[in-house]
């Protein structure tokens, strides 16, 4: 099961990196969304995947018997999902504002902060 998940996570990362390398903000945004899910799946699979085995420790024992999924990575993912969702929401609005203000979603043309043809600095004084 984990091996299949590892493959799936790999596909997610591949797609995310491919999209992140694009020049267009909208594709980068999709890449960010997929990257967040790739990480969540990675941590989920890292905590062992078992079906129908509750991680309950019997009263007379100190540790769990047999393989059971670790609940902690799932708690970590809950935190990470909330965070990545809120970041995605912020970046979505930011990208929209950037499109409105700069009239482009091509990062090559987003040169307002670093203009291409700046006047040369004074050469003497």
């Amino acid at each position, binding site marked *: 099961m984990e091996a299949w998940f590892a493959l799936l996570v790999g596909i997610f990362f591949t797609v995310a990196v491919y999209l*992140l390398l694009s020049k267009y*903000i909208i594709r*980068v945004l999709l890449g*960010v969304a997929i*990257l*967040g899910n790739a*990480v969540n799946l*990675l*941590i989920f699979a*890292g*905590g062992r995947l078992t079906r129908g085995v509750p991680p309950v420790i019997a*009263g*007379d024992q100190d540790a769990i018997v047999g393989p059971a999924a670790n609940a*902690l*990575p799932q708690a*970590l993912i809950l*935190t*990470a999902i909330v*965070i*990545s969702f*809120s*970041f995605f929401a*912020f*970046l979505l609005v*930011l*990208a929209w*504002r*950037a499109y409105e*203000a*700069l009239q482009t979603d091509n*990062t090559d043309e*987003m*040169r*307002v*902060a*670093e203009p291409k043809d*700046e*006047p*040369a*600095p*004074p050469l003497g*004084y």
Partner: protein
Amino acid sequence: MAATTSPPADLSAALVLEPVASADWLVILPVAWCLAIGALLVMLRRKIDWHPPIAVLGLAGLVVIDILLLRHVLASGPVTMVMGRWLPPFGIAFTVDLTGALFALTASVVALAGGTYSLADINDSGRRYGFYPFLMLLMAGVSGAFLTGDIFNLYVWFEVLLISSFGLIVLGSEREQIDGAVKYGFLNLVATTLFLITTGYLYASFGTLNMADIARKAEGLSGTAPLMTLTALFVLAFGMKAAAFPVNFWLPASYHTPRVVVSALFAGLLTKVGIYALIRVTVMLLPVEREELSFVIALAGALTMLVGVLGALAQSDFRRMLGYLVVSGIGSILAGVAVGGPGGIGGAIFYALHSMLVMTALYLASGVAARLGDSFSLSSLAGLYRRHAGFAALSLMLAFAVSGLPPFSGFWPKVMLVKAALDIGAWWLAAVLLLTGFLTTIVTGRFFLLAYWRDVASGEGGPASATVSVAALLPVAALTVLALAIGLYPEPLLSVVQNAAAGLAEPSAYLNSVFPGGAP
């Protein structure tokens, strides 16, 4: 639940049973204080006249708390507090050692300077947009990152400070800011996601997130766990946060766009959080792998220094030049991390503290210069010396400090780093450090000549009668005096920094503080 049927469990093995000593509450207080004041300011969002005094008093309170915390750590070694009374490694631990306390104190001083400057820089509309709540929440994130003893918790604080910084960087919504914020936002998000990926792998290999527990187990796992992969990913993620060479381009693209005070706070706080995390993880948690990677880190550091300072030399905008100088300073710190040992790590910590103070002061000074000369650009900025000789003197001192010239704070960490590099035979690294200092002197000297000494050409130039308010000049002066004081009397800080570096290299006191009864 199950306790009613089974015999009562022995809680002493899992919980902290004795109440927390009142002095130990100081560990969590900086974060709680900032969050409380931030929440208060959010509740008072319609009373924007109240925001500045509450925030400045809150930041002054934060400085006091951090001074008390540093004193406590100096007196009794690392201090640990665990959340919910769960014993580590299960409970989330806040552990403060000398390094964390020093960084937290410097950050609060920087924030107080920024808060004071904001009285002159942030207008009503900025207050209505929530500058002060964002500032307090940013400080909560920064303090939390410096004080936490849990690696996932560190990630959460990174996100807290990142989302607050997003709010600050778009404050004003100008076209330039939106452009800068897009690059800042996306690349920082990728960096924190890399950090999260690494944390996932770390938990999968170690089964723990507590830093002390990781430091203890790292040696035993070196044969089976992919520690080299973890370290390389950590270095990449934190290097990206700190703007180290191959991944530094977001910083000069965005740091000159927001309000001056926001740039100043970012330059003083955000990259240094990345540096702190890098030092904490590579030096304390994975020292063997840091040694293996040291050549890569040294190369990245040397290239960061050179790219930063050459970039600064090419700029004709005051704030863009400062952005490149921030990058160059990060390179010096990386050189210290690569060299290692008490000299290298101590020098790196000292340089980071110096850089926090001086880069913030320089950004604030660029704001004052723009008020006096009505421009950030070298083409029109001129005659500042004639307009305000006192401010020109302060700027010159800061220029000396950032170049690493005596008698200012930049001199001693540079000496430590060069000496440490020579001691291990890395003469090329020492040469790059010295060359960078020399080039930085040229950068700042060129700016001083053109912006301060050059006379205003007749018929142009800003308003000659422009005055600067005390709120704008006071933080610059205070930080400059601090840099001068550290430069003139470095012994106390030097010894504290060396102790901090020793505490990272040999973390037995840190481990004892987290696991007082030895190994569980």
